[in-house]
């Protein structure tokens, strides 16, 4: 790997790097909630990916477009049904599902417009979350869920087991799963285990339609 590519890898958040490594070079990718475009930029410059983004904040969109990325202002709840079936090889939804109005519908849209959907979310079964609620009697705040209850955008939190249940209900195939710590590094549990649901701070699933 070239020094430039090493540098690019070092600059990317660990969970995004983990996602990037799941994506085949040259693929068509839609990153929903792409923020400042870090993942898209990495994918298009290092992997030759044909990348598009949707971002809710106008400042995020403008930053992306002024860096040459194809990004539109939009919202996972309302704008995904514009896209045709199978428009992308991969659709990425990173740490955004819990902030959508209708996660079930969003999840169904992801696997409709993408051959594969890569979803990450904070695990509400994480022990520190449970500790906050059970021992302290307070709404949990953690490194991944930093905002207090009155200002958080995370309105649909779930545990890893909850998420797996929803995937089952929707008849989705899990092609890949991983448990990540708060910095986004992979910790090797089997996600089906209660252990993972207790110690995993965030989870990653690669899903497809059955």
């Amino acid at each position, binding site marked *: 790997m070239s020094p430039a590519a090493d540098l690019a890898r070092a600059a990317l958040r660990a969970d995004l790097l983990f996602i990037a490594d799941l994506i085949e070079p040259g693929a*068509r990718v839609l990153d929903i909630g792409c923020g400042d475009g870090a993942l898209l930029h990495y994918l298009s410059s290092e992997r030759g990916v*044909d990348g*598009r983004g949707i971002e809710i904040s*106008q400042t995020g*969109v*403008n930053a*992306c*477009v*002024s*860096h*040459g*990325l*194809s*990004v*539109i*202002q939009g919202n996972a709840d309302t*704008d995904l049904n*514009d*896209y*045709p079936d199978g*428009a*992308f090889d991969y659709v990425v939804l990173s740490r955004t599902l819990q902030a959508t109005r209708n996660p079930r519908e969003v999840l169904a849209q992801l696997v409709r417009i993408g051959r594969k959907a890569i979803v990450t979310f904070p695990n509400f079964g994480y022990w520190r979350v449970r500790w906050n609620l059970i021992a302290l009697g307070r709404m949990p705040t953690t490194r991944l869920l930093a905002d207090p209850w009155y200002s958080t955008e995370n309105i649909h939190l779930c545990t890893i087991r909850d998420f797996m249940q929803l995937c089952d209900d929707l008849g989705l195939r899990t092609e890949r799963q991983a448990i990540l710590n708060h910095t986004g590094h992979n910790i090797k549990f089997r996600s089906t285990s209660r252990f993972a649901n207790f110690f995993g701070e965030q989870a990653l699933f690669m899903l497809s339609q059955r």
Partner: protein
Amino acid sequence: MAVADPMDVSPLSESAAAGQVVELGAEGPLRLDSGTELSRFSVAYQTYGVLNADKSNAVLVCHALTGDQHAANAHPLTQKPGWWDVMIGPGRPLDTNRYFVISTNVLGGCMGSTGPKEINPDTDKPWGLSFPVITIGDMVRAQARLIDYLGIDQLFCVIGGSMGGMQALQWASAYPERVFASVPIAAASRHSAQNIAFHEVGRQAIMADRDWHAGEYHTHNTTPRAGLAVARMAAHITYLSEAALRRKFGRKLQDRERITFGFDADFQVESYLRHQGMTFVDRFDANSYLYITRAMDYFDLAAEHGSLPAAFKKTPVRFCLVSFTSDWLFPTADSREVVKALNAEAANVSFVEVDTDKGHDAFLLDEPEFHKTLVGFLNGAADRRGLKKP
């Protein structure tokens, strides 16, 4: 270019005002949407920068309703800087060290391209209202003939604001293989009822002027100055925002301490509009105004193709749409509608809404965020197209 003789005080000839003019039609008549054909027609244009060896760096700049080909040079009639001087030039967003910029006067215009003011070669008299009603599609067809004439297979980019944005959309829809990137700014895929209504007010003002003579004013040695000025004044309000008018003028009085209890231009905003109207009539043809506003009114890509996505079926074009928050003539919702249609075709599209209080006219102004967006998009596209960096 010839150096102007400082002793030469004679008014500029038509051809000098037009810059470069090419006579087309010998390769085949131009078939218009109305069904009429133009057997011979002219396109007046300006270029900036240098066309590269493989002719891959051409950018077509499309002007708005009252613009012309003089996008980045001093206007031959008003001596003012070109209408997109802030955008075109070395180191500017449309960097002439990297791109070859072509700017044409639209078909129906009055700065040297064939239009109602020009001589009908079949009658040797000005066309007047015998000029066929044209569409945005016809304007783009005429531009495509110029691009053929210049030997360019594919434009790197078609870009424009307002009606220029309509042309950028029309180019992408009609000639998807001939456009690498399309940048419609403050534009829409169809003219709204409100916009048609404003245009009708302008047209009626012109036609109500006794000097219009049913479009035959050239034979009466008059021009409907008052009517055209009123049309311009009404239109100019729609190019601004209420906030900008308030910031710029408020209720401030014009060169006076108190109101005069008369109908002079007491308020600065009145004086400003009168000035806009008066200076406009010196450079624009009233019949052209009728024809071009009509072309915009008729523009409706969805109606033409059955649906808006159908206008961009499997488009290979890279799009960047830009809208402005305070633009009520072509509001953000209009751009968003195009974005939705392009998404339905899984097209490569960027869309930015720029926060400004400058209204529709913001596309002509030095808006840093707007320019930053364009530079980013153009650089990204140019790298993909393999254009050499300046």
